[in-house]
């Protein structure tokens, strides 16, 4: 499955400044593995010990993946994946 992955400002150092990159995979986990091959380091900023980092939000077609199975969320051709850092503090 080919999907579009939209990358936030803070992670564009891994994509040569590109706002969006192409990813391949049947699940979100596979897409992040695929991305890491071409953009080393990107996955580690989103995934930690096999789970999504607490303060990074990922959406597939506008749906927060925390409610759709997290990294196991399945993807279809043409889906849009958005990565957004949480805006949070104390």
């Amino acid at each position, binding site marked *: 499955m080919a999907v579009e992955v939209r990358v*936030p*400002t*803070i992670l564009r150092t891994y994509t040569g400044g590109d706002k969006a990159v192409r990813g391949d995979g049947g699940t979100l986990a596979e897409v992040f593995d695929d991305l890491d091959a071409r953009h080393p380091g990107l996955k580690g900023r989103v995934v930690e010990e096999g789970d999504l980092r607490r*303060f990074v*939000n990922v*959406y597939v077609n*506008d749906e*927060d993946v*925390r409610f759709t199975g997290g990294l196991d969320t399945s993807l279809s051709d043409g889906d849009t994946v*958005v990565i*957004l*850092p*949480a*805006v*949070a*503090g*104390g």
Partner: protein
Amino acid sequence: MLRLDRTIAAAIVDHARRDHPDEACGVVAGPAGSDRPLRHVPMLNAALSPTFYEFDSTELLALYKEMDARDEEPVVIYHSHTATEAYPSRTDIALAQEPNSHYVLVSTAGGAHEGEGLLPLRSYRIVDGEVSEEEVRLVDGSVTEDTE
């Protein structure tokens, strides 16, 4: 330095008073690359907490899509402290992920939430865990004119 329209500053202070004792949060968006905060967007603190804030995840996506469509960025990200001074907490520093934004804090501690009128806004850059405070200059009317 942060230049901020006085009416937007007043709206941020009103938001902080309204949500006290919980922390209030939001952004002031502006044209990408302009450093001009023009459009105040109060956000929901999904944590509903006096010691923590987090933009609601659905609102966060809607906000970024809207800013993207308008070629804007979050020039200012603000929140209130309701029991401590307007200085970034350790959590604020650890979680700051917008190196281009001005992080603005307002404090409603010590009874300040009960008063009227403007409260001091303090502004910081937070990059790679390093905090630097900057001057806040309130301007009237337009913040589009750079006088320097």
